[in-house]
Every structure is written in structure tokens, then in C-alpha cells.
């Protein structure tokens, strides 16, 4: 019950950048829909769409949501997209410049907004789409995997919206708080800890340090040099350089917990970055999540490497 209330609150807290009328419609949605919503998709001159349980859902002006188009759906005007964009940046686009160049904006309360528009050397202009991804802090979501963690590396893999970040965050909290591990989180997109005014908004444990906004590879190097962590955690491994840094850590006695986007399990050995990571020996356990977030498969990295 308390978790449900928190998830409803999470949804409500992601609406602050929207125009008031849009906010009112979304706030009046039933709690069930709010809990199941993972994304709010806004496109210029197109209807507002929620992603609920992986499927698109329309929202009517009268505050109802349905998988079929309602009589009067909420439309997002082109000027509203720009207004939302400026609000997301808290009227300070220049402070989000580096993020915008990478196609996202770190929002308050660990939410993240993806932005699409015309890319130019200084950033993005003529914003046409915004995708607000709602962060979910669910304590206990890592219960199933935490017992499998053997102090060596762990890779949490799954398709988008399968709950990788949610599980990673809870794993960090549990390892830090219950197992007394010294952890450094590289929170490049502010989704794990959501540090605001130097204080993490999400519970990531008492023995956790956070590096926010850094490139993951740079953050890893910084953590290894300065924070003497036992575990380094970060979201979405995506570059060879990050694998190099993980190997640096491996040879310094630091283990890693990270996540990876995959479509299905076999993609782990097909994606060059994850294949190399698994072969490097830095990962001991692989956790594979399915799209709906129900099934969790825990495998030995060696077994996964043998898939070809």
C-alpha cells in the first residue's frame, strides 16, 4: 500500500514541467494507471501518449486514459513543447547543455526526459518530441538478485522499461546498508541517486558515494583514484572505454554492478560491448529481466559466454 502511494507520488512528481491544464488531466488519472505508467510521450501537434505496461495509452481532456483514442484527446501544441522544454531546464538551458547534446535532460526526483529536435553543433533546437521517463524507487526490488551477488561483478540486462535501473538502485542500497559495502555510484544521468543540492533524493544506502553528471568512463576512473570503493555501480554500459575502466577496476580489486540494454538474452554475446565485458572476467553473474518485469533469470557469466 505504501509502495503504491509512493509510485503514485512518483508519477505526480514527474509532471511539474507540463502546462497546468495537462497537469490537471494527468493528476486526475486513476492510481492504477499512474502506477503502471513508465513514460509520458509528448510530440508537437500530436496527442499526449502514456506508456502503460509497455503499450501506448491515450489520455482524454476529461482525465480518462484508454488504449483506444478518446473523444477529445489531449493534444500537445508546438509552442507547448518548447514551453515544456524550457520548464524541464528550469529556465536555464545552459546548465543542461551537455545533457541536451546527448539527447536528454536530468529532471528533478530522478526522472529523465529524452528530447528530439534538430541537432546542431551547440545542442538541439526546434524540439519536436519529449519523452519523460518516470523513475521508480521500489525498495525490495533487488531481493531476488541480492543473494546471488558473490562480491564479484554483476550485469543486469533487459529490454527498455524492464526495471534495470530500479533493481540496480535497490541493489546498491541493500549492499551498502545491509552488507556494509563501500560503493561509488556513477550517476551520469541523475537517475540512480537523483542528487539535489548535494543530497540524494533516492535511498542509496549510508555507505554510498555518488558522482553525478560525469561521463561513465571518466567517473569510473575518478572513483578508482579517489574514493577507494569496493563496488562501483553505474547504469547502461555502452562504450569500449567503460569496459577498459571496469578492467582497470577489476585489477585493483573493485567489482562492478552495471546494466545493459538487450532485446533478448542472446544479445549479450552479440553486442560487442557486453560480449567483451563478459569475456573480460569482470562479471560473475548475469541477471536477465523480461519486458514485463516479472521473470528474473540469474546466470553465471561463464555460461552466458558459451552461448554463440
Amino acid at each position, binding site marked *: 500500500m505504501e509502495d503504491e502511494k509512493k509510485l503514485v507520488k512518483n508519477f505526480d512528481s514527474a509532471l511539474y514541467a507540463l502546462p497546468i491544464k495537462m497537469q490537471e488531466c494527468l493528476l486526475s488519472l486513476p492510481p492504477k494507471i499512474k502506477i503502471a505508467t513508465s513514460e509520458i510521450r509528448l510530440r508537437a501537434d500530436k496527442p499526449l501518449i502514456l506508456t502503460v505496461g509497455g503499450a501506448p495509452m491515450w489520455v482524454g481532456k476529461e482525465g480518462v486514459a484508454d488504449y483506444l483514442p478518446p473523444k477529445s484527446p489531449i493534444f500537445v501544441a508546438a509552442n507547448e513543447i518548447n514551453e515544456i522544454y*524550457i520548464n524541464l*531546464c*528550469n*529556465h*536555464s*538551458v*545552459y*546548465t543542461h*547543455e551537455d545533457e*541536451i547534446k546527448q539527447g536528454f535532460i536530468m529532471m528533478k526526483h530522478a526522472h529523465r526526459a529524452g528530447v528530439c529536435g534538430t541537432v546542431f553543433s*551547440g*545542442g538541439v533546437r526546434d524540439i519536436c518530441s519529449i519523452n519523460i521517463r518516470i523513475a521508480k524507487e521500489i525498495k525490495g526490488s533487488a531481493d531476488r538478485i541480492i543473494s546471488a551477488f558473490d562480491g564479484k561483478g554483476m550485469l543486469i540486462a533487459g529490454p527498455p522499461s524492464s526495471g534495470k535501473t530500479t533493481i540496480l538502485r535497490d541493489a546498491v542500497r541493500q549492499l551498502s546498508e545491509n552488507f556494509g559495502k563501500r560503493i561509488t555510484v556513477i550517476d551520469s544521468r541523475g537517475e540512480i541517486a537523483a542528487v539535489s543540492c548535494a543530497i540524494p533524493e533516492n535511498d542509496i544506502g549510508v555507505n554510498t558515494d555518488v558522482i553525478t553528471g560525469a561521463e561513465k568512463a571518466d567517473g569510473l576512473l575518478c572513483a578508482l583514484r579517489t574514493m577507494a570503493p569496493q563496488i562501483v555501480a553505474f547504469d547502461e554500459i555502452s562504450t569500449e572505454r567503460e569496459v577498459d575502466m571496469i578492467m582497470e577496476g577489476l585489477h585493483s580489486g573493485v567489482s562492478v554492478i552495471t546494466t545493459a540494454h538487450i532485446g533478448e538474452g542472446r544479445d549479450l554475446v552479440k553486442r560487442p560491448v557486453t560480449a567483451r565485458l563478459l569475456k573480460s572476467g569482470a562479471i560473475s553473474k548475469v541477471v536477465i529481466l523480461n519486458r514485463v518485469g516479472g521473470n528474473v533469470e540469474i546466470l553465471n557469466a561463464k555460461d552466458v559466454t558459451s552461448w554463440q
Partner: protein
Amino acid sequence: MAVIGAVMIFASCALFGVLEAVALSQRVKKLTLCRNYIMRVGEEIRHSRKELPEILRGVKSSVYIENGVWQNTAGLKDEDLSVLYSYAESLGTTDIDGQIKNTNVHIERLDILLCDAVDKNKKCSRLYVSLGVLCGAFLAIIII
């Protein structure tokens, strides 16, 4: 009665002249304050990279921006206000280079207006006072 009327007309005309002169110097003062304010906000954006609401809270001035609107701008002309509104509208909407250029452009535009205001103040403030007094005296003599 005629003398009292004449004195009142003289005083009104002289006061009108003085007020016009004060308005001219007031415009110079306000434009200077606005220019300094824009410059300080620009410097904060460039160096501290804090978010705009925090910067605007921190930069103290008698002419300032609150909720995207300039406050205490009485005494400025429409042409001055249009520059200030354009600045407030574009504030925080671009990357750092854009903000620096935006600050410089608006300071240049304010400099032109300020030059003009200083010039007018020098040329006309004494003139307005003298004209007010002379007109008052002229009308007072006619009445008496």
C-alpha cells in the same frame, strides 16, 4: 488674487521644467542600473553556471527581473523597455555561448540608448528647467 494665480502658474511651470529634467536624469540612472544588472547576471551565468532562478535571487539591484518580468522600471521609455523585455524573454533559453552573445547584444543595445539618454540629459536638463522658469515668469507677467 491675480498675484496668487500668477505665483501658482509660475511655480507649476517651473516645477514642470524641473520634473522633466529629473525624468531625464532618472532615465540615465535606470538604464545604467539595468546595464549593470544584465552584466552581473551574464557574468554569473558564464562563471557559476547556476540555474537562472538562483542567479536572479542572488544578484541584488533596485531594477531586477522577477518571474520573467522586469520590476521597478518606471521612468524608462518604450524603446528601453523593448530591449529589456527582449532580454528577459531570451534569458536562459540557449546554451552558454548563446547566453554570452545574448548578454553582449543587449548590453550593446542598452549602451546606445544610454549614450542617447546621457546626451539628452546634458543638453536638455538645464534647458527644461530654464524653459519652465521662463514660461512661468512670462505667463505670470501677462496675468499680472
